[in-house]
C-alpha cells in the first residue's frame, strides 16, 4: 500500500529516512540541505518516536554523533551542504575505513551555480575518495526511494552510503509515492567485532583492506541497481550518459522516445558493463552531469584513446554552473524557441540586510571607526552579515570558510597589520570560531573580534543558535580577559557606545571581543506570529 504526497527533493529524503527506520538525524544547516532536517523536526512520526532531530554545532560533530548512534546499532541520517563535508571530511574518510554498524546515509547537497555558496565543489569526488557507494537521485521519487535503499545498502554492507543531490532537485516539489508505514527502528546492538572502530595502525590496515575487498561488491551492486539503466535508440552516431537530474533535461528535449541510446546513472561506482554496452554501439558519447566533469574524466581516460567524449571538458557544455534544458538542447544541436526579449538591461536585485537588522548598527559604527585606519583591515565570515561586503557598507574584506575571520585576523595581526578586526556571527562562531579564538588568546594576538549575535542562524532560515546567551561565557572560558569582553544591545541609540568600545579595544594590545546583541528581526516576527 502506498500514498502520494507533494514533497521537495529534500523533504523526500527526510521522509525516506523516517520511513527507513532511522533513530536520529544529525545536521548543521546549509542551503540547499537545511529542509531535510527541518522536515524531520516537524514530522508527526518523528515526533511520536522522539527521533533525535536537534541541530549540531557543526557538520563534524553531527557526523561523529551519527556514527555513535550507528555504533549502537541504530540507523541514522546525516545532512549537510557540500562545503559542510569539508568540515566533516576527517570523520567521513575514516568511517569509510571503520565501516558502520546501524545503517548510515550521508545526504550532501551540492550547489552548482553557487546560488547560496562559496564554491560549487562536487561531492561525488568525496564519495570516490572514500571509496563508498554514492547514490544520485534523478527526481523527488528517487530521492525517497534511494534514501530507503541507501539505508538498506549501508546496513547490509557495513559501509556509510552517500546521497548526493543538487539545488534544483533539493528545492523542487513533486508528487512522491510513499510507503504506508515507517519501518521499525533498530534495537540497540553493539558491533560484533570489538576492534572495528579502533583505527590503530595494525587494525586500520586490516579495516582498509576490508574496504578495498568490498570494491568489487560495490561495483556489482551498481551493475545490478534498478536505478541505473540502459535505453536503446535507433541513431548510433551518439550515445548519452545522464547522471542524476541531468536525465530530466535530456528527456525534456525528447519527450517521446530518444533517437539516441542512453544510460542513466544514479548509483556509483560507475557501472562498467552498462557503460561498455553503450560505448560499443555508438560513435561518440555525450556526458550530462551536474557539477564537475567527474564521469567525463573517467570515460576519457588519460590518453583519450577511445571514442570521442563530449561534455564540459571539450566545450560542448559550459565548464562551470548548473545544467538546464536549454544548455542540453544546444549540446544536442536542437533548435529551440528563444523566448521574448527585452531591449534594455535590467538592474540586479541582490539580497540585502533586512530593514531593522542589528547588523546595520554594527557596520555603521565599524565604518565610522575604520575610517581612521583605512580600508582592507576587517575580516569576516559567512552569514547574513556577509552582506556587509556590498554597498552601502562595503565594510568587510573576506568571506572564505566558516570561522576563517578569526584566524585570518590573527594571521594578519601576526604579519603586523594594525588594526586587525574580525566580524563573525554567533552560529559561525560556535561552528568553527572558538578554536581560532583559542589560538589568538594563546599568543595574545592583537585582534578585535566582533560577534554579531542575532541569537539565530539567520542566513539559513532562523534555526536556533547552539550557544544562546552563552557567547560571552565561552569567550571567557577560552581565556579572553573579562575586561575585554563587552556585550551591548545593537540599536541605533547605542551607536556612540559601540564606536567608543571599538576605539578603546583597537587601542588595547591583545584579544578583545565585542558582542552586539539583538534578536534577528525575522525570527522575532515569526515568534510573534505563532
Amino acid at each position, binding site marked *: 500500500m502506498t500514498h502520494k504526497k*507533494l514533497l*521537495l527533493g529534500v523533504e523526500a529524503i527526510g521522509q525516506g529516512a523516517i520511513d527507513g527506520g532511522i533513530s536520529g538525524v544529525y545536521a548543521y544547516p546549509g*542551503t*540547499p540541505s*537545511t*529542509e531535510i532536517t527541518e522536515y524531520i523536526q516537524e514530522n508527526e512520526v518523528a515526533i511520536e518516536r522522539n527521533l533525535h532531530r536537534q541541530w549540531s554545532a557543526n557538520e563534524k560533530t553531527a557526523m561523529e554523533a551519527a556514527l555513535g548512534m550507528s555504533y549502537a546499532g541504530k540507523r541514522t541520517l546525516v545532512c549537510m551542504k557540500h562545503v559542510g563535508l569539508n568540515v566533516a571530511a576527517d570523520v567521513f574518510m575514516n568511517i569509510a575505513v571503520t565501516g558502520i554498524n546501524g545503517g548510515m546515509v550521508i545526504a550532501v547537497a551540492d550547489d552548482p551555480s553557487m*546560488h*547560496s555558496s562559496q564554491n560549487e565543489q562536487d561531492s561525488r569526488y568525496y564519495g570516490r575518495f572514500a571509496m563508498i557507494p554514492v547514490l544520485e537521485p534523478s527526481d523527488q521519487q528517487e530521492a525517497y526511494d534511494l534514501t530507503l535503499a541507501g539505508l538498506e545498502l549501508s546496513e547490509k554492507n557495513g559501509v556509510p552510503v552517500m546521497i548526493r543531490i543538487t539545488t*534544483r*532537485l*533539493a*528545492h*523542487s*516539489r*513533486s*508528487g512522491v509515492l510513499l510507503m504506508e508505514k515507517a519501518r521499525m527502528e533498530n534495537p540497540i546492538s553493539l558491533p560484533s567485532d570489538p576492534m572495528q572502530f579502533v583505527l590503530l595502525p595494525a587494525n586500520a590496515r586490516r579495516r582498509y583492506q576490508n574496504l578495498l575487498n568490498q570494491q568489487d561488491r560495490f561495483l556489482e551492486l551498481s551493475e545490478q541497481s534498478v536505478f541505473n539503466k540502459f535505453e536503446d535508440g535507433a541513431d548510433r552516431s551518439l550515445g548519452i550518459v545522464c547522471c542524476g*537530474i541531468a*536525465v*530530466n*533535461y535530456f*528527456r*525534456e528535449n525528447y*519527450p517521446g522516445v530518444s533517437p539516441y541510446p542512453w544510460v542513466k546513472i544514479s548509483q556509483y561506482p560507475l557501472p562498467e558493463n552498462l557503460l561498455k554496452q553503450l560505448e560499443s554501439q555508438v560513435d561518440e558519447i555525450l556526458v550530462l552531469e551536474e557539477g564537475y566533469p567527474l564521469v567525463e574524466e573517467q570515460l576519457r581516460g588519460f590518453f583519450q584513446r577511445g571514442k570521442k567524449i563530449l561534455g564540459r571538458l571539450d566545450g560542448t557544455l559550459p565548464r562551470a554552473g548548473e545544467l*538546464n*534544458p*536549454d544548455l542540453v*538542447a544546444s549540446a544536442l544541436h536542437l533548435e*529551440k*524557441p*528563444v*523566448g*521574448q*526579449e*527585452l531591449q*534594455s538591461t*535590467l*538592474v*540586479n*536585485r*541582490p*539580497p*540585502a*540586510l*533586512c530593514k531593522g537588522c542589528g547588523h546595520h548598527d554594527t557596520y555603521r559604527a565599524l565604518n565610522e571607526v575604520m575610517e581612521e585606519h583605512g580600508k582592507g583591515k576587517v575580516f569576516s565570515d559567512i552569514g*547574513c552579515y556577509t*552582506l556587509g561586503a556590498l*554597498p*552601502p557598507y562595503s565594510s568587510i574584506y573576506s568571506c572564505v570558510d566558516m570561522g576563517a575571520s578569526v584566524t585570518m585576523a590573527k594571521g594578519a595581526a601576526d604579519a603586523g597589520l594594525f588594526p586587525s578586526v574580525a566580524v563573525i556571527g554567533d552560529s559561525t562562531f560556535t561552528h568553527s570560531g572558538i578554536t581560532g579564538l583559542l589560538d589568538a588568546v594563546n599568543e595574545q594576538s592583537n585582534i578585535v573580534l566582533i560577534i554579531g549575535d542575532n541569537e539565530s542562524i539567520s*542566513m*539559513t*532560515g532562523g534555526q536556533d543558535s547552539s550557544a544562546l546567551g552563552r557567547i560571552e561565557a565561552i569567550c571567557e572560558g577560552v581565556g579572553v580577559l573579562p575586561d575585554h569582553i563587552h556585550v551591548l544591545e545593537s540599536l541605533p541609540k547605542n551607536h556612540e557606545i559601540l564606536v567608543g568600545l571599538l576605539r578603546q579595544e583597537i587601542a588595547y594590545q591583545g584579544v578583545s571581543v565585542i558582542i552586539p546583541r539583538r534578536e534577528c528581526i525575522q525570527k522575532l516576527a515569526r515568534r510573534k506570529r505563532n
Partner: protein
Amino acid sequence: MKCDIVLAGVGGQGILSIATVLGLAAIENNLYLKQAETHGMSQRGGAVQSYLRLSDQPIHSDLIPSGEAQLILSVEPLESLRYLSFLSEEGYVITNTTPYVNIPDYPDVEGVLKTIASLPHQVAIDAEFVAKESGNAKSSNMVMLGAASPFIDLPLESLEAAIRSIFARKGEEMVAVNLKAFHAGRSFAEQTLNH
C-alpha cells in the same frame, strides 16, 4: 493540458503562497506537477522566482525551457521583466504594478510600466489597491492569482477550494477576504481581455 508558469517577485513577498494554491488545485485534478523554488540567500530581499509546471503528462525537467512558458506571474513590476526569455510568443505577463523599492538604483517606475505596456500580451494590475478594496491589503497575492486564473486551465472550483484550505487555519473571515480578492483580480483580468 500543459501549463508552464514563471512566478516572480522579491524575497519576502510570499510568491510561494500562489504556488501552493495552484499546486493543490493541480493535485485535486490529478495533474502532474513540478515546482522549483528559490530558497537560501536570495530570500533576503533579492530577486526570487519559482518555476511551476502543470501537465496531464509526466513532466521531466524541474526548470522551464526558454520560450516555453505560457505565463509570467509577477507580484512586482520590475521583476516581471526579468524572465521574459522564458515566455513563449503567445505568452502573457500578468503583473502587479506596485513597485518594491529596496535597491538604490531602482529605475523610474513610469518607465518600467511603459515597458510592460509595450509587451504584446500583458495584464498590469494594482494588486495592493484592489486588495484594499476587497477588504485587506495583505491579500494582494490572491488578487494576482485571480488575475492569472483565466489563463490557467484549472477549474474555478478547485482554485477556490485550494484558497479555502490554505487560509482555513486563519479563520472564516480570512478565507472570505482572500476569495473576494481572488475574484476581484479575476474580473479585472477578464475585463482587460475583453477590451
